[in-house]
């Protein structure tokens, strides 16, 4: 079943879910939801006209300087590096997401811009270079000062607040990407039939459905 047909199947209201699911083999089901050609832009989702105008306004300007973007990219890849399961933050285009989101949510602008400058000043004092020009081990020394909120020194608390925000924004950008969703193991957003918690999982937690539940609840076991 090609993607166009599967979408058509989806929007024909009279089709039962069973037909829909059986019409799509597992690897093809993905095609419904993971269109590799879809760009990370607004127009693929339903927008009212005021939202389209707002979106155009947001993307019309650039917020971060090239130097700031370079630092953001280094930090994002320190926070989410490539490992054996998935790629890095920059592989998942997290820096682009951060550039967008600070324009969409202006409350992040000052904390990020100011935090980047705070980090560069710290770096200049220690290593006489801005952060992005430091050697990797120097960068890691600077990051280690601010990456551990409970053991950080009081004088670096502005850096801790900045790094917390960077960590949270980076993680949000990464785990909401296709790569990140797979990494964390979200399996959903696809037509299926909920037939209850799998038997091995029930057993693992020493739980069972009651007779009442089994009798009353919708059941998709093949007879």
């Amino acid at each position, binding site marked *: 079943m090609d993607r166009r047909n599967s979408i058509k199947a*989806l929007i024909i*209201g*009279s089709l039962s*879910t*069973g037909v829909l699911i059986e019409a799509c083999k597992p690897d093809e089901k993905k095609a*419904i*939801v*993971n269109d590799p050609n879809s760009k*990370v*832009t607004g127009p693929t*989702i*339903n927008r*009212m006209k005021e*939202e389209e105008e*707002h*979106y155009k306004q947001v993307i019309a300007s650039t917020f971060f300087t090239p130097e700031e973007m370079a630092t953001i990219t280094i930090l994002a890849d320190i*926070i*989410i*590096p490539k*490992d054996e399961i*998935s790629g890095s933050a920059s592989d998942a285009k997290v820096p682009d997401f951060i550039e967008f*989101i600070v324009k*969409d949510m202006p409350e992040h602008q000052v904390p990020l811009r100011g935090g980047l400058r705070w980090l560069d000043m710290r770096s200049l004092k220690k290593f006489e270079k801005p952060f992005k020009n430091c050697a990797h081990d120097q960068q890691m020394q600077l990051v280690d000062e601010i*990456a*551990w*909120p*409970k*053991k950080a020194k009081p004088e670096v608390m502005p850096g801790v607040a900045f790094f*917390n925000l960077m*960590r*949270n924004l980076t*993680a*949000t950008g990464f*785990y*909401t990407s296709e790569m*990140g*969703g797979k*990494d*964390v*193991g*979200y399996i*959903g*957003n*696809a*037509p*299926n039939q*909920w*037939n*209850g*918690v799998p038997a*091995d999982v*029930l057993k*693992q*937690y020493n*739980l069972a*459905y009651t007779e009442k*539940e089994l009798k*009353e*609840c*919708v059941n998709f076991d093949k007879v």
Partner: protein
Amino acid sequence: MGDLQIKKQPKKYDAIIVGSGAGGGMAAYVLANAGLKVCLIEAGPMFDPKTDSNQLKNPWESPRRGASTKYRPFGDFDGCYWGWEIDGEPYIHKGDTKWEWWRARMLGGRTNHWGRISLRFGPKDFKRRSIDGLGDDWPIGYDDVKPYYDKIDQMLGVFGTNEGLPNDPDGIFLPPPKPRLHELFIKKAATNIGVPVIPSRLSILTKQINKERGQCFFCAQCGRSCKVYGDFSASSCLVIPALKTGNIDLVTNAMAREVLTNNEGLATGVSYVNKDDLQEYQVTGKTVILAASACESARLLLNSKSRRFPNGLANSSNVVGKYLHDSTGADMGGIIPELFDRKRYNEDGVGGMHVYTPWWLDNKKLDFPRGYHIEYGGGFGMPVYGFNWGIENLNGTYKIKGKQKEAGGYGASLKEDYRYFFGAHIGMAGRGEAIAREDSLCEIDPTVVDKYGIPVLRFDTKYTDYEIKQAKHMKETFSEILHSMGAITTWGGDDGPHNDYGLHPPGNIIHEAGTVRMGNDPKKSPLNKWSQAHDVKNLFCVDGGPFVSQADKNITWTILALSMRTSEYIVDQMKKQNLG
């Protein structure tokens, strides 16, 4: 643009309906199917879930990854246009009022994104004054509404179970989905401390009920509206099918300004501004049915002043806008360590909870007068903006794969932490009954108009000890349930007397009602027991406005039942020529 003039539509309708949500959609459906000619006025654009829903979109298809905006406060994929604020349409707070006013502007209104929690009011819910002396009794009782609940259960579909509870009536239910893993934890823990947990009652089709609508395919995204019409929205299940009768002229992007009246004091039509061409229009009809939402309908009546009705239309009682009340709400979240490092599988399920807690206590033994129910959330949700925000508060607190780590951090170790905690969070939300009071109200602001020149509402309301004590009780219950399952509170645990125990501002739960209430006494209520204006016999209101009180139950199913009841009454009265 030339000089402003009023364009009068020559056609005379049997009925003009203002608003296309649950109440207006049902009225349009019943009247059009009875062969009446209907003009349906909607303040927003056309919306058909089949083509317009964001269902099955992935988080990365939103540039803001599903985060909210003022256009979509419940997130970028949500199925509702607008929310707490609308450009050019302000509302005002009197004194320290904190009322929050949700306004949907689209075909089907807010039913495109609601929680589908479809609870019947019980016998006691119509007679609360007789029980606790507060508020007023309804002029009707459960037996008057039951036949309509039965009809809409079958016509629109709702899953649930018959439990034989005295004030949570049985219905005609489709089978509910089995509980998810965290819901089994909640059920076990709550039951252990005497809090009942039963299958939820949501208007979602776990079985197909007709050829026009598909069966639920368990994507958990009812909030986005459903492309196969597998859940109830007024757009997909009422208005769009009713349009096929050919008896409805739908006017979208039309903001109602006034209800028009004649010298005999009857309603003759509605004037509106077209938001696209900004021209003024009038349509005429034999009856006018308001369903613009409780507060918008009150606003429309109060703005429809004339020599005969100097106080606003249908307002000789002077209570239009009064008795405004919303559900109370307080929430708490936690994490279940037993669920760390869970096995992955698809547990999306339906768009909402599979189990809930109906009110289970006797208020005579408590220090607050009305009850609440508890809604539950949790599990493997689709990652969206804010995913595991604040992990630095979690990952130093628990051993991760047997190791005690330092809070915060970065790198491969941090990636492990995100995987470890995924799916272990749960949330609880209490939704309760507030007392409808005369001094809780909305009125026309004396000076402020919206961008169409329509005077706007000013809200004057605050909660009392009744609601605050109820919120305190909710919080204590949530803590006990969390404790009973070995979960740790992660948010909502710091609320106390300083912030009214986390009680949400009124309006925030989006169940506003009571502003055009029904009653037998024309001096105390604008509407009679048929939701027909005492003062204007061909004027009706079928949204949340007519509610005398709203129970600890989400009001949509009762709006639908009452609107169907009123609409059948209108058809009958028109046949008998009693409305002209």
